[in-house]
Structure formats: structure tokens, C-alpha cells
């Protein structure tokens, strides 16, 4: 019979998971053996890379960005495409609703010259096209933006094809989040915490990202992400300078007052 030590205080689950992760524990793997790092694509957000436990989106994953409309899912997805392009990857955006704004994508760092935009006739064809591209194996990261349309069939097959090809698909499905979450290998919930503003201008939003499902590592981690709008990204460097006391003192000799970052409650 197993004896339990009731006198020891129970460690809270998040701290326990963090401690296990520090010791190199992965789900389904013996903790003593060496764990080869799973190849991953950067998310464009270092904090989220750490929270995912695999250093980014695991290759071969169908990842659901579980976020209500306007919570930064598209910004995060486009940031991922930009980061993938920066590492020499090939990216695509599947846009059945025609909602992609190239100017926004360019503002978020996506190189439009190497962005493939696919416009399927409807959501079902979008899933089929995504499967086709995954099977061809030429695309490293793609965004499947189903917007508010109902979730079509075929996502399970797409997930299988992705595992074989090693590509990553970020699924934006505001309307079908629950059913898509069961098929996705990675699920990240985004909730807005605050707006980011410079003066009276909103330049972005602070979002809490929670890894609610992670097939290749331990889930449950959280990260706080500052997602800037396309125009706000240009002032990103100055905003960081303002937020750092050292950097602000270094700018003391400047005639212009550095902009200050304000966090406004959502």
C-alpha cells in the first residue's frame, strides 16, 4: 500500500509543472533519458515560445488560436508568419473570407514578396486546400483564417497530413473554437488584459496567452504578450525605451520627450 506523507504541504499545480519542466520532463517520456528537442517554428513572441515548452509551434502541429474577435489572434498569426519568413521559411495565408489586409501584414513584418495568399471559395475548400499544401510539404507555416464561418469537415485529415509533412497551421476559427480545439494538437487561449496606448492613441493590446492544450509538452503555462497594431509596431522600439529606466536616462539629453507607454484597463 502506498503511504502518503500528509504532513508535507501540497505544491500548487502551476509551480509543480514549472518545476517538472525545469527538470526536462516531457509528457510520455522517461525523465531520465535524453530528450531531443522537437523542431519548432518561432511564434515571434519569445515569452510564448517558452510557454509552449517546445521553443515555438511544434512542427507538424495544427494550432488553434482560441480567441474572441479582436483579441489579437490575427496579429499573433501574422507575427508568426513574419518570424518564419525571417528564418527562411515559406508561408501562406488561406483567406476564404477575404479579410486579409496586406498593409497590416506588411506592418507586422511579413515580407509580402514571399507571402502566398490563397483565396478559396468557401471554408470547406479552404480546409481541403490547406491539406493539399500540407501534403506538398513546401509550406512551413500557414494561417487558416476561417473567421466567423462554421467549422467545415476535414480538419482531422488536415491534422494527420500536417504531422506527416512537418508544417505548422495556425487555425483562426472564432465561431468553431470548441470543436476545433478537440482536433488541434496545440491550443492557445488569448484573452485581452489591457490596451496599450501612447498618449491618446491605442497602439496595441496586452494579451494573456494560456497554453490549454499541448500534445508535445506540458500544457498549462501562461505568457503575457504585448501585441502591437501594424502602425503601433513602428514605435515599438521607442516604447520599450520608455519602459526601461536605463534607456530613458540615456535619452536625457534628447530635446524631444520620449513617448510613454500607458496601460489602460480593458
Amino acid at each position, binding site marked *: 500500500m502506498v503511504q502518503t506523507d500528509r504532513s508535507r504541504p501540497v505544491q500548487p499545480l502551476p509551480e509543480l509543472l514549472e518545476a517538472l519542466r525545469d527538470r526536462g520532463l516531457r509528457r510520455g517520456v522517461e525523465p531520465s533519458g535524453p530528450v531531443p528537442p522537437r523542431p519548432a517554428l518561432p511564434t515571434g513572441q519569445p515569452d510564448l515560445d517558452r510557454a509552449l515548452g517546445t521553443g515555438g509551434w511544434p512542427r507538424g502541429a495544427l494550432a488553434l488560436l482560441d480567441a474572441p474577435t479582436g483579441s489579437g489572434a490575427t496579429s499573433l498569426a501574422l507575427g508568426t508568419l513574419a518570424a518564419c519568413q525571417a528564418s527562411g521559411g515559406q508561408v501562406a495565408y488561406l483567406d476564404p473570407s477575404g479579410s486579409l489586409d496586406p498593409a497590416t501584414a506588411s506592418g507586422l513584418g511579413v515580407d*509580402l*514578396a*514571399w507571402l*502566398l*495568399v490563397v483565396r478559396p471559395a468557401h471554408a470547406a475548400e479552404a480546409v481541403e486546400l490547406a491539406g493539399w499544401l500540407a501534403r506538398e510539404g513546401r509550406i512551413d507555416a500557414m494561417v487558416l483564417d476561417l473567421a466567423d464561418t462554421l467549422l467545415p469537415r476535414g480538419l482531422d485529415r488536415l491534422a494527420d497530413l500536417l504531422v506527416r509533412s512537418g508544417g505548422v497551421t495556425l487555425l483562426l476559427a472564432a465561431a468553431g473554437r470548441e470543436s476545433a480545439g478537440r482536433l488541434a494538437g496545440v491550443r492557445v487561449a488569448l484573452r485581452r488584459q489591457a490596451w496599450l496606448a501612447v498618449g491618446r492613441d491605442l497602439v496595441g493590446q496586452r494579451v494573456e496567452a494560456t497554453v490549454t492544450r499541448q500534445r508535445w509538452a506540458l500544457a498549462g503555462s501562461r505568457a503575457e504578450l504585448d501585441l502591437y497594431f501594424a502602425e503601433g509596431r513602428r514605435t515599438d522600439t521607442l516604447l520599450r525605451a520608455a519602459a526601461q529606466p536605463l534607456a530613458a536616462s540615456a535619452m536625457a539629453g534628447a530635446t524631444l520627450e520620449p513617448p510613454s507607454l500607458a496601460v489602460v484597463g480593458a
Partner: protein
Amino acid sequence: MRLLALVWPDLRLPEAETAPWEPMLDRLDDLSPRVEPVATGVALVDVTGLGPLLGEERRIAARAVALCREVSALPVRVGAGENRWLAVLAARLAHPERPDAPAAFRALDRRELADLPLDLLPADPATSQRFALFGLTAMGQLAALPRSAVGGQFGAVGERLQLLARGDDPRPLAPRRRPARQVRTIVFDPPLEGVGAIALALRRACAELCDVLRTRHLAPGRAALRLQLEDAPAFGVQLAFPTPALEPDWIARLLLGRLEQAARARRLGEVEEPRVGSIGLVFDRLADPASRQLPAFEAQAARWEELRWSLERLAARFGEGRLWRAVHDRPTASLAERRTRLVDIGPSAS
């Protein structure tokens, strides 16, 4: 200039089987882009400048022989010289080092010609007889005579032979030309029922043409297919490739897809299963597949070229109007959303 002359004595015989001749020339393309088929069984290869890459001439010759032996193991004599006369003469004089050796090699310099007999010159019997009457038996004797005296006694033919005896040959190498196109025609007897029935024959024709081009290091940039119908006017389709490619399976499938689209557009469906009498397949815009190395200077450019092939297939499967690319063509527009626009990059747009 340094030339290699390769002579296959067995191919020079009147009753010789000459089928391996063209494939052997194709193999020699691996060694040098300048290959001249002088006659069946005699080839000249320009090996100028290959020394630093491949080593001394004997090794270059061994490489040429090895390439040709991939096709046929016929015995070969190889000569090296600074012009075509010296190279061919060297090949004639080459003797195998042992009786069962598959190849013989000799390099000839113009200084070695003086002691060689005059019979080796390509002179007609009358001129040879007159040389003998004048007591000329070695090439050095003819070479030492004044040119005007030789011209006066033997005419223009004598002057040309004296140039050869001195080791001079002004005739340039005439490398064989690349084919401009490859054509394959298949006649069906009895005719096939329906356009879709040609798939197998089309796949076979594509594979055959790709095999021919692969040996010559070429790839088609465009394919054209023409159908002769028994009960309807002939019609055809064309397919331009994003890059020269040797993918027979996909070329056939894309051509078939275009063909079915064209058949629907021409309302061939009104004719109940048109009967196909023959198909003609043409590959043209032949280019060196090695040119595809150029996009390697930018990693994504190379990967995009690979992707273009996938997109061609995607367009054939899902139809047009699906593939777009954003361009930043109005950077000074006041509204951000007007600085960029989407352009169609599907096959119809190209």
C-alpha cells in the same frame, strides 16, 4: 585549343550496329559542351581548360572512355592534339598497351610529325604517287619545302597537305547543336474512344521525351499536345512551365487537365465520345536545368520556384482565381490600405 579524338573502329565498319552512337555522344556532353560527331564512330571533344579540373590529358581521356562505356563497351582509340588533324592522327596511331585493353591513348605534338610516313596524310592516290615520284616519303620532307614550290607543283591540294604535314589545321571544331524541340507522335489504330482514354499513352510519351532530354542535360520549358480526332476538328493545348522541368507524370497530368478544360470549352461533349486517331506531343523551349541554380542566391526564391510547381497542380485541381500575391506598388498612398493590392498569380495570369 586541346582536342580529344575518339575513334571506335567497330562502329566504322559498314555492317556495324550504330544504335549506341547517339547515346555515346550524349554521354560525352557530360565532359564538355563542345562535341563534334565527325562521322559515325569518330567524335571530337574540346577539352581546353579542363586540365585544372580533371588532371592530365590521359585522365581526361580515361573519363571520356568511361562515360562512353556506360552505353557500350566497344574498344576505342583516343588521341589528343592541339587541332583536329593532330587529334585524329594521334587516335589512328594509338596502340593498346596490352591486347585485351579496352582503350588506347596517344597524344601527338606537331614536332613528332617530321618522322611519320607521308602515307598518313589524307591524299588521293594520284597525289600520293606524285609525292613518291619526287622522292617525298616523310612528312618532314614535305613540310620543309617552300610553300610556293609545293603550290606550283601540287596545286591547292598540295598546299593543304603541306599545312597538315607541318601540323597546322585551320578547320575549327563544329560542335553539334542542341535540338530546338522534341516531338513524339503516337497513332492509335483502332482510334481511342474519348479524350480521357489517351492518359496512358500521353504518360508514356512524356516519359520517353523526358528520358531523351535527361541524357542531354536539357529540360522542356513548354509542352504542346495536339489531338487528331476522327469525327471533329483537331485541337490542342499548350502548357508553359514555371521552370524547365523533367517531371513526366505531372506534365502528363497537367496537359490532360488542360485538355479536358479545352474539350469542355469547345463543346466536344456534343460529339458522343470523340475518337482520337493520333496525338502529337512537342517539348520545346529546351533549356539547361542547371539554370535553376540562379535562384539559390536567395533561399526563398529557390523555394518559391519549387512551390510554383505545387501551385500549378493546385490550380489544375481547384481552378483559377485561388492564388494571389500581395504587391507593394503604391508606397506613397496616403491610406495604408491603398499602398498594397493583391495580384492573381495563377496559371492564367502567367
